[in-house]
């Protein structure tokens, strides 16, 4: 490295630059937080059942097989848009029934097919989870995923 660049100069650049970028990052995070709560999600419909559904989602660690908005494990289908894939926009009751029936019928036991465990969710928990997935499907994600396959 250039001789004129001393150790203390590189140190000062490191501390100063890092502090600058950290402040910028925090400011952008603050704006993003505000944007998420007011623009990209609909907090007016963030009901108790959606919140309970998020806990069902977490307690059963769905994320370690599925992805949600593309994040998670890559072992099972994307669920951020599962509500849309099941036709929930046109036929909410049909999608709800289909999703619940799917979860209740697992594991399929079919040889050579990935098995989803039976989580023994109550009817209430199933409804809450579906509410959570429905709410998540309405997050404005800049047009992702590219198609219904997720």
């Amino acid at each position, binding site marked *: 490295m250039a001789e004129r660049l001393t150790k203390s100069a590189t140190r000062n650049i490191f501390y100063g630059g890092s502090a600058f970028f950290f402040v910028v990052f925090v400011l952008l995070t603050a704006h993003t937080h505000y944007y998420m709560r007011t623009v990209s999600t609909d907090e007016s419909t963030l009901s108790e059942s959606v919140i309970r559904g998020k806990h069902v989602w977490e307690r059963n660690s769905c994320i370690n097989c599925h992805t949600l908005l593309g994040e998670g494990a890559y072992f099972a*289908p994307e669920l951020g848009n599962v509500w849309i894939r099941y036709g929930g926009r046109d036929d909410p009751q049909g999608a709800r029934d289909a999703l619940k029936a799917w979860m209740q019928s697992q594991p399929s036991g079919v040889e050579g097919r*990935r098995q989803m465990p039976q989580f023994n969710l109550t009817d209430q928990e199933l409804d809450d989870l579906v509410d959570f997935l429905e709410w998540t499907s309405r997050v404005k994600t800049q047009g992702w995923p590219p198609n219904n396959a997720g």
Partner: protein
Amino acid sequence: MRFATQRIAYWYFVCAMALFGVQILFGALAGTVYVIPNFLSEILPFNILRMIHTNALIVWLLLGFFGAAYYLIPEEAERDIESPMLAYAQLVILMVGALGAVGSYMLGIHGGREFLEQPLWVKIGIVVAALIFLYNVSLTVLRGRRTAVTNVLLLGLWGLAIFFLFAFYNPSNIAVDKLYWWYVVHLWVEGVWELIMASILAFLVIKMTGVDREVVEKWLYAIVGLALFSGLLGTGHHYYWIGAPGYWQWIGSVFSTLEVAPFFAMVLFAFSMAWKGRRDHPNKAAFLWTLGTPVMAFFGGGVWGFLHTLSFVNYYSHGTQVTAAHGHLAFFGAYVMLNLSMISYAMPNLRNRAPYNQVLNMWSFWIMTSAMAFMTFTLTFAGVVQVHLQRVMGMTYMEVQDQLALFYWMRLGSGIVVALSVLLFLYAMFGPAREQIPQRSRPSVAPAE
């Protein structure tokens, strides 16, 4: 070993390697489920296998970092660790937490945010252990000699503890949840962990090449500067599709492209120091790992990261096997190899022997690195096919997965080779220590420490 308290590192390394074994075992099991889906499905479902695979990885890497800190801080600060008793207490807390977490996962008790599944009592244990650790090493450093290596290392370790606090914040709004979840995940592995990595590498380079400290430390500040200048705003590449504003596509694309720079700088640094310095350090195996670490980190973190980081590429590749490919090689190249470098370097000193079992260790280096590279290639191919069929052609997820079976078989094969090379490494480090240095490479002058 110049200071008695460096011995603490030995037990950290032992525990780290035990959890390394757990990580690899569960990785192999999860890889098996990919090709034989009914395997274990009624007893230990995939989500639990993966949880243990990723959690064991994270905890053993942390134990490795702590062990490295306990080993190098006395030499840098030129004084013993403030309280060995606290250091051992910290290790006990972490191991009880780690084994408790694995046990409770198997019983189906866990949180549900990826990588942060630890039950609350384990999370609190981690914070208590981190506080003990920071108190212990900060005091040691403050009362001893201050060097750039310890400055950067401490900054990284403090950052690690502080950003972990976001693990306790779980908003009900899933988008906001994801926004701060990355404060732990991204700001760890693409932020403060890079500080820890660069400082440990700098320590190893100083010790093994004998290059003047001034030169090394100047490089160190330049590298960690590049890491944070790019990595902080580089977090934006996780904010493209989770409900964040569109400007992140620009910021994330530009800054995360720059995230290649610190890794490239580490490669230049390690190799130029190796050429500049003495090349006769007796611990050839540690030196090999030390040179290999930045190279594989550059490919895994840098090249494979860049591969899918531009927003218009990521729009198609997000959340596919491409991500899995990057994740595997990045963690291996940057942090696994870093820890194995440090362990290879420190163990002979901790066991009071001349470097031993070097040929075995170097074999494990080449086998493990090749197998991880192969695993990455298979997952990358799987990912590219998946992107095309699913994201472009619109085939359903499960139909696409059926097309990828060949790649998953090859991934499992490479995973088993990794497991064998890990056993080789563990035997080389902890097995009987025979001297295997060829006569000609024995240094004629006293080696660096």
